[in-house]
């Protein structure tokens, strides 16, 4: 399919940059019958439970999203919810933008279940569904392996079951977790992830242990959606200060849909506190910013839009992570970033090429 000859585009001044999209959604996380596109793959022992009780999550913190399925108006396929129809997505996304590869990030409710075994059953169903209906049908696709990450044993069992499948290129976590992800309860997952050479993908969303801010409940969707970087920042501080990267030097983390303008200021802040409070975390051997630049990758969407375009390049210089940024569209969601617009403030073509495709190609081992 990737070899299909396409019509010559109208204007092409320069060699066109390859595109790898690091954030495509074939499942949307809000559990309802319409979104359970994986249900036929539910393990038989859990089918009755799924049909009768299903979906006991840590609900109560969400604000209504702006539009149905948080989707683009034009992303509704002939059947099923946005993103769930392979043919429609191929045409609207992969083919239109001539993408080399796309990474599927199913936003399933597996990780947020109070009944952990049921969450693990959802994870199995989503993974089997992805193999049968996505990975085996389009060789441009790779996927994130869904795991019930709030229980390390269950997550490790799923990694051992499917971690060697070549279609799965990372694990799938959600940003709002029960505990900061550096804490010990998650360490067994990291051990398995390193064994199977799978990065940890942490995606926008999830339902954590309390309010979606560190200071209480938020009223509006802009606080939920716009506030997501707060969860990502807390995860970064946790991974670093808990010493996870000393314990697992091979561990790689991909922050998906968190934005990236906040990371340079966070590195500076973390370095400064570390210089003064080193005694509390004696197991760290390097500056926090060094761990961050080595271990974290960030997808671009929602790309930062500074008040002055000059700030964009300042931000990239402050981050010094040109080799860690990876382009993403977030298809089919309303805040889609388009491949021809998202990086318009990046003037260095080599950097743009790295971000649009090469960093992801290297991280995920793609041709």
């Amino acid at each position, binding site marked *: 399919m990737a070899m299909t000859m396409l019509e010559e585009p109208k204007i092409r001044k320069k060699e066109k940059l390859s595109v790898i999209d690091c954030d495509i959604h074939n499942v949307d996380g809000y559990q309802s019958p319409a979104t359970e596109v994986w249900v036929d793959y539910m393990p038989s022992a859990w089918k009755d439970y799924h049909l009768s009780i299903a979906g006991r999550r840590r609900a109560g913190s969400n604000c209504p999203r*702006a539009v149905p399925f948080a989707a683009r108006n034009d992303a509704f396929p002939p059947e099923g919810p946005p993103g769930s129809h392979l043919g429609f997505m191929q045409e609207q996304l992969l083919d239109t933008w001539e993408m080399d590869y796309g990474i599927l990030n199913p936003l399933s409710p597996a990780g947020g279940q109070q009944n952990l075994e049921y969450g693990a059953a959802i994870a199995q169903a989503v993974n089997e569904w992805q193999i049968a209906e996505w990975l085996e049908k389009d060789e441009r696709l790779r996927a994130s392996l869904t795991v019930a990450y709030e229980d390390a044993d269950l997550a490790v069992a799923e990694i051992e079951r499917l971690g060697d499948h070549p279609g799965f290129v990372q694990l799938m976590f959600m*940003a*709002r*977790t029960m*505990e*900061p992800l550096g804490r010990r309860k998650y360490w067994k997952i990291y051990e398995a992830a390193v064994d199977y050479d799978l990065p940890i993908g942490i995606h926008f969303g999830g339902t*954590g*242990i*309390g*309010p*979606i*801010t*560190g*200071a*209480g*409940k*938020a*009223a*509006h*969707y*802009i*606080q939920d*959606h*716009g*506030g997501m*970087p*707060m*969860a990502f*920042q*807390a*995860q970064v*501080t*946790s991974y670093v*200060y*808990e010493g996870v990267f000393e314990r697992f030097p091979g561990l790689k983390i991909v922050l998906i849909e968190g*934005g990236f*303008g*906040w990371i340079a*200021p*966070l590195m*500076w*802040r973390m370095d*400064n*506190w*570390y210089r*003064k*409070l080193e*005694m*509390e*975390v004696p197991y760290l051997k390097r500056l926090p910013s060094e761990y961050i630049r080595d271990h974290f990758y960030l997808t671009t969407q*929602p790309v*930062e*839009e*500074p*008040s*002055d375009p000059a*700030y964009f390049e*300042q931000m990239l210089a*402050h981050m010094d992570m040109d080799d860690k940024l990876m382009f993403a569209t977030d298809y089919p969601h*309303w805040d889609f970033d388009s491949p021809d617009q998202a990086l318009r403030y990046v003037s260095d073509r080599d950097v743009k090429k790295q971000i649009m495709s090469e960093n992801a190609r290297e991280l995920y081992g793609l041709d």
Partner: protein
Amino acid sequence: MTTNFTGLGRPVVDCDIHNAFASLETLVPYLEDHWIAYIRESHFRGPGANDYPGGAPTSARQGTRPANGPPGSDLSLIQKQVLDPWDVEVGILACGYWVQSVHNEDLAASLATAVNQWQIDHWLEKDARLRASLVVPSQNPILAAREIERFGDHPGFVQVILPVRSYSLYGKSEYNPMYAAAVKHNLAIGIHFGGASSLPPTPVGWPSTYIEECADMAQIFQAQVLSLISEGAFARFPELRVVLIESGFVWMPAWMWRMDKEWKGLRRDTPWVVRPPSDYVREHIRMTLQPMDAPINSEHLLQMIGQLDSDEILMFSTDYPHWHFDGPDDAIPKGLSDSLLEKILRENARTFYKL
């Protein structure tokens, strides 16, 4: 580490000096009998947020601990180490006595009144350079408003101080009585690092270490800024002035970009937000200088200050006795124009606090 208490050789307004006391005994003269009995019988020792652990290097610069009591408890030492050497024209006391974590709201209110009277007696009346922050039981905005009514006309109080870790976001309309009283009495709202709300300080639960909680504090400030704007506090109170104290400021440019971008897509949800959120920040919000969270490359720090798109936002602070810098050399950004430096050192605070 040498501790250097010399200043810049030019006058400043210091927007964050911490005054403290050794124990609840200090407040006993200001408390009603039944609270004194309650405290004696229960061995209650006052709200304890432990947001500045006594032995942590960041909690106190070397040499700031007086013979009796914790750092910040001895006015003469503060005069010797801050007010005199830094040529402080006005020093704003930020008393972090978080009555918000006392769940008996009546006791919290009485403790606040006691602390405020103590601040008048032991600080404001002892040094004309000082101004103070009103401690209020903001967990109950009606009681908080009552406290503002009690002391709001005292010329020594210039703001109401709130911990950034609240149980309920500060943009919510439940705070209307408190903000109405603050605006009426011409008081700013100071939102300060720390507190103990009983809620986890992150959207993902409780961090293990103090250092992590300190770094995480910035994202709670972000939550409060977004709440104040999107939940309509500035729309309801156009005169509301907010200062983020000890928040760090380098995170603010990217946060403004993010809020503005979100607003473009989602402003239909919050029709009272009629301008980009960054406009509200520049109009209503100020930030104290320390901790600077400075990068090694001083040019990068200047770029961040430029990215604020305003010369009015930053206000000088020493954050005494907390340890963020070792002397005047690393207390302010290097390479600022003299006019911007003057704004940061004095003018912005004079305008904001109407000094």
